[in-house]
């Protein structure tokens, strides 16, 4: 009698994606695909230097180029109080530079013209006279007592320090170190990188003076936040602002912040009274929009001889670039860095964090993670391996001894988080079995005969995903809830709208599956719509793996509200009291007589055509969900690698991923997320970084310097699953899209270090390019910091 949930595309169905139907036909609708009548095109002139005072800007030759409609400078923005804008971290950032340029690639002028070629030509005609200032390209230079002040625009700013911040119990941690048998230390740099979605950022602003309505099509992961910010900055009434986030060609955190190009395009549309399109080029994207990481991490672990961890100290120095524009929703200055060691039962810990301005691109984003969790977990797993090595203990056994046990949940971490569920040892066991851990010593000896070095690297971690709860997480004061609105039409078909915004993450497919699970309406009968602030309920968008934990929960809750009303309609149709009604998937029936029932579709029809006296017609509702806690997925990643000592090249022989993200709504999409994340982890360990030379020139501002792995070098991944439902989530799900990027890099790096263990090498900082591995191998010394920039002479 009851429906087959997988057949109707409910929970657990590897339903093929709805959105694919347009993408495989080339019928996606990305911002650059949208054309409005009379549309103009904008290009941005960027600073060629890292740090300079602007002496003068001459735009007259640009105005003379036929087809140019408008040339905007910082002064013109300033006249409208738009030269600076607030950042998501309560700092300010320049929209178009007025006084100084503070990083290479900074926005200086904008040209609006009939086509993008003309706009680019005219940018080339603008003459800017710069007085060069000394550039600061790392925190050590920034902290120097005689360092030039980058942010001389800010009243009260002293030097280049942004913050000092600490958390944890210092006295108790000091005591733990006094009592330790062994103290293990490690010092790392997590290099600067870029999320680099395939599609760059862009917008199409359309201001209609007749109606006062501003419509902006925009590459954003959080359209409602953009609307709120535009209302604040542009002082337009919120009801007259419509932000549409159409198909997004990848985000990974890069499309959370509000960038100068968006603001300038909006003003240009207001001034020209025409739609203005701005599509950033790849170099613009790589050199000026939200980067990730760039943190120096130092720490130590107090250990007992038997392997028990007694305490941890961490010290972080982060490089934020020219403006403190971290896109993060927490109250903690260094994001969720203190989620480090959450999977381990550690009595006490202390962390000290410092942040600096430099003459580098601003706006650290959570690149495919909750903010700073990637750095935290990388440090954690490198520290754990170093500690196991220092104790002479097996790296798997050391983890086993210190893991939080299943029955210890809910568990308060040393830094104050509350983890609520997990089966860490089970995941580790599955991983070790799959990689053939027992036979590894023999395998390694066999490889040594061939002159090859084998290594195995483990990374196990639980990470906080799905901000937030409203007590601790907000953006510009707006709490980190999310929303869903469900309307059931009279035929029993439905439309669902949410405040989240997918960016290739399959929401149109999985969100319908949650409704199918709750109501028994086939997923194919449910249209999912997101990204238009005129129609979607207010939500905080998609990043930090928060869609399923927060919006996904809101969807389950709104479906339950709808079901509660449908129950009343069923009682009316079946002529019994509501208390005598039972529910099975897709259907209500009379208790004791399962044959006598009505479907959810019958109830939908009745809601419009046959409702009981006094009942409000219709079948729809809205739910806003404020999660009680973050969700805590767990992952165990194990890499087996082989180094060719002649060249330093390392190959991945096998990679095993065991993910516990709670209940899986669509297993196919979950696995797709994990494989994608592991590829970015591999990229990070291997090749994907940005650095700056001493003059502040960016290295990694195009795809010739900024390397992303292709199908050729990317290894295969073996995936395994464990399911520990999230105890507080309505359908037991946890976040998953970011676990692999967060936990993956340490598995690769630990594997290379394991292979080099006998060579006296303790650490090579990412990227582990063959020349760096070769250097470590031949000198027996660690390799620290960024690869040096080789200049032409």
């Amino acid at each position, binding site marked *: 009698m009851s429906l087959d949930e997988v057949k109707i595309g409910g929970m657990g169905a590897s339903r*093929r*994606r709805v*959105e*694919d*139907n*347009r*993408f*495989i*036909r*080339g*019928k*996606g609708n*990305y911002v*650059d*695909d949208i*054309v409005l009548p009379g549309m103009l095109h904008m290009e941005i002139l960027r600073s060629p230097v890292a740090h300079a005072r602007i002496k003068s800007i001459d735009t007259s030759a640009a105005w003379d180029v*036929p*087809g140019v409609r408008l040339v905007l400078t910082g002064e013109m923005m300033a006249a409208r109080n738009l030269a600076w804008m607030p950042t998501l971290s309560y700092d300010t950032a320049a929209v178009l530079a007025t006084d100084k340029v503070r990083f290479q690639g900074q926005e200086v002028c904008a040209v609006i013209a*009939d086509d993008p*070629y*003309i706009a680019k030509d005219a940018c080339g005609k603008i003459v800017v006279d710069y007085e060069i200032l000394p550039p600061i390209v790392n925190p050590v230079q920034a902290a120097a007592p005689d360092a030039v002040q980058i942010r001389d625009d800010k009243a009260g700013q002293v030097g280049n320090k942004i913050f000092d911040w600490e958390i944890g119990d210092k006295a108790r941690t000091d005591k733990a170190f006094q009592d330790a048998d062994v103290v293990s230390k490690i010092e790392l740099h997590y290099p600067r990188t870029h999320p*680099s*979605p*395939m*599609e*760059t950022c862009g917008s199409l602003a359309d201001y209609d003076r007749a109606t006062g309505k501003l419509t902006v099509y925009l590459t954003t992961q959080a359209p409602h936040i953009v609307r709120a910010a535009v209302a604040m900055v542009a002082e337009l009434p919120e009801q007259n602002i419509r932000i549409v986030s159409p*198909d*997004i*060609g*990848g985000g*990974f955190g890069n499309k959370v912040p509000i960038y100068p190009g968006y603001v300038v395009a909006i003003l240009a549309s207001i001034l020209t009274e025409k739609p203005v399109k701005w*599509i950033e*080029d*790849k170099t613009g994207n790589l050199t000026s929009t939200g980067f990730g990481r760039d943190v120096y991490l130092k720490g130590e672990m107090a250990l007992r001889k038997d392997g028990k961890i007694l305490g941890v100290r961490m010290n972080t120095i982060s490089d934020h670039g020219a403006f403190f524009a971290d896109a993060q929703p927490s109250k903690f200055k260094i994001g969720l860095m203190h989620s480090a060691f959450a999977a381990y039962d550690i009595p006490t810990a202390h962390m000290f964090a410092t942040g600096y301005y430099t003459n580098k691109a601003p706006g650290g984003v959570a690149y495919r993670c909750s903010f700073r969790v990637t750095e935290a977990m990388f440090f954690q797993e490198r520290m754990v391996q170093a500690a196991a090595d220092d104790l002479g203990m097996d790296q798997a056994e050391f983890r086993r001894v210190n893991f939080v046990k299943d029955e210890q949940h809910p568990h308060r971490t040393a830094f104050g988080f509350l983890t609520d569920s997990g089966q860490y040892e089970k995941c580790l066991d599955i991983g070790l079995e799959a990689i053939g851990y027992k036979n590894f010593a023999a395998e390694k000896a066999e490889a040594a005969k061939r002159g090859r070095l084998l290594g195995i690297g483990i990374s196990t971690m639980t990470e906080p995903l799905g901000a937030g709860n409203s007590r601790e997480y907000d953006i510009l004061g707006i709490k980190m809830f999310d929303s869903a609105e469900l309307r059931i039409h009279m035929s029993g078909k439905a439309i669902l709208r949410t405040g989240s915004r997918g*960016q*290739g*993450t*399959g929401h149109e497919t999985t969100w319908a599956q949650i409704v199918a699970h709750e109501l028994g309406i086939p997923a194919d009968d449910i249209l999912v719509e997101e990204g238009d602030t005129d129609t979607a309920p207010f939500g905080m968008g998609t990043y930090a793996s928060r869609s399923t934990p927060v919006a996904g929960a809101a969807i389950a809750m709104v479906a339950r509200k709808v079901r509660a009303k449908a129950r009343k309609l069923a009682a009316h149709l079946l002529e019994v009291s509501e208390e005598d009604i039972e529910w099975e998937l897709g259907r209500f029936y009379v208790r004791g007589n399962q044959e006598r029932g009505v479907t959810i579709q019958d109830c939908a029809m009745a809601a419009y055509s046959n409702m009981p006296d006094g009942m409000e017609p219709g079948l729809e509702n809205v739910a806003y969900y404020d999660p009680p806690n973050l969700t805590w997925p767990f992952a165990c990643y194990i890499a087996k690698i082989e180094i060719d000592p002649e060249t330093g090249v390392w190959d991945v022989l096998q990679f095993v991923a065991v993910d516990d993200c709670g209940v899986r709504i669509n297993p*196919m*999409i979950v*696995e*797709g997320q994990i*494989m*994608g*994340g*592991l*590829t*970015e982890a591999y990229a990070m360990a291997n090749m994907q970084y940005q650095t700056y030379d001493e003059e502040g020139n960016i290295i990694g501002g*195009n*795809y*010739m310097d900024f390397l*992303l792995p*292709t*199908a*050729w070098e*990317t290894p*295969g*991944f073996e995936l395994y699953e464990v399911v520990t439902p999230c105890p507080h989530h309505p359908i037991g799900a946890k976040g998953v899209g970011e676990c692999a990027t967060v936990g993956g890099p340490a598995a690769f790096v630990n594997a290379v270090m394991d292979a080099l263990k006998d060579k006296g090498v303790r650490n090579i900082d990412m990227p582990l390019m063959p020349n760096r591995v070769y250097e470590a191998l031949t000198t027996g010394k660690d390799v620290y910091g960024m690869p040096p920039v080789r200049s032409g002479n």
Partner: protein
Amino acid sequence: MSSLYEEINAPLASDIPIRRVTINVNGEARTANVEPRLLLAHLLRQGFKLTGTHSGCDTTSCGACTVLFDGRPIKSCTMFAVQADGHDVQTVEGLASASELHPLQEGFKQEHALQCGFCTPGMMMAAKALLEENLNPTEDEIRWALSGNLCRCTGYQNIVKAVLWAAEKMRAELN
């Protein structure tokens, strides 16, 4: 493009020559007046309104703009439209027939070989060129053939599977 009415927005600088090109796009002759510096990707997207060909990096690195040029995969962001005059160009919009998807399109959906969809048209066109030469490729041959196309979401594993899926279907259709 209708010749009934075309407003000339801005006075063109007299020193910009205009060239007329005729390109066979997806089996249909398309003619346009272009500036010699106009890139093929931009003519396809803005001129011919075939927006399935995406501009990713503008530097021949990412492959999102891959189309078939006389059957060979090329990156249309680094070819001038005038260079395509008199040639055949196939874009993603030409893959499916009116009633049927191309096996690569089916395979990409079936094997979950796409997420954000931005690299997908280029990936499928590069794969099509491979399968036209070799209907029984190995995994390595597929990976090599697609190594000029970057994907940021999927990790390639499922893309390789999708191409294998399509190859199998195309072989079956031949028999």
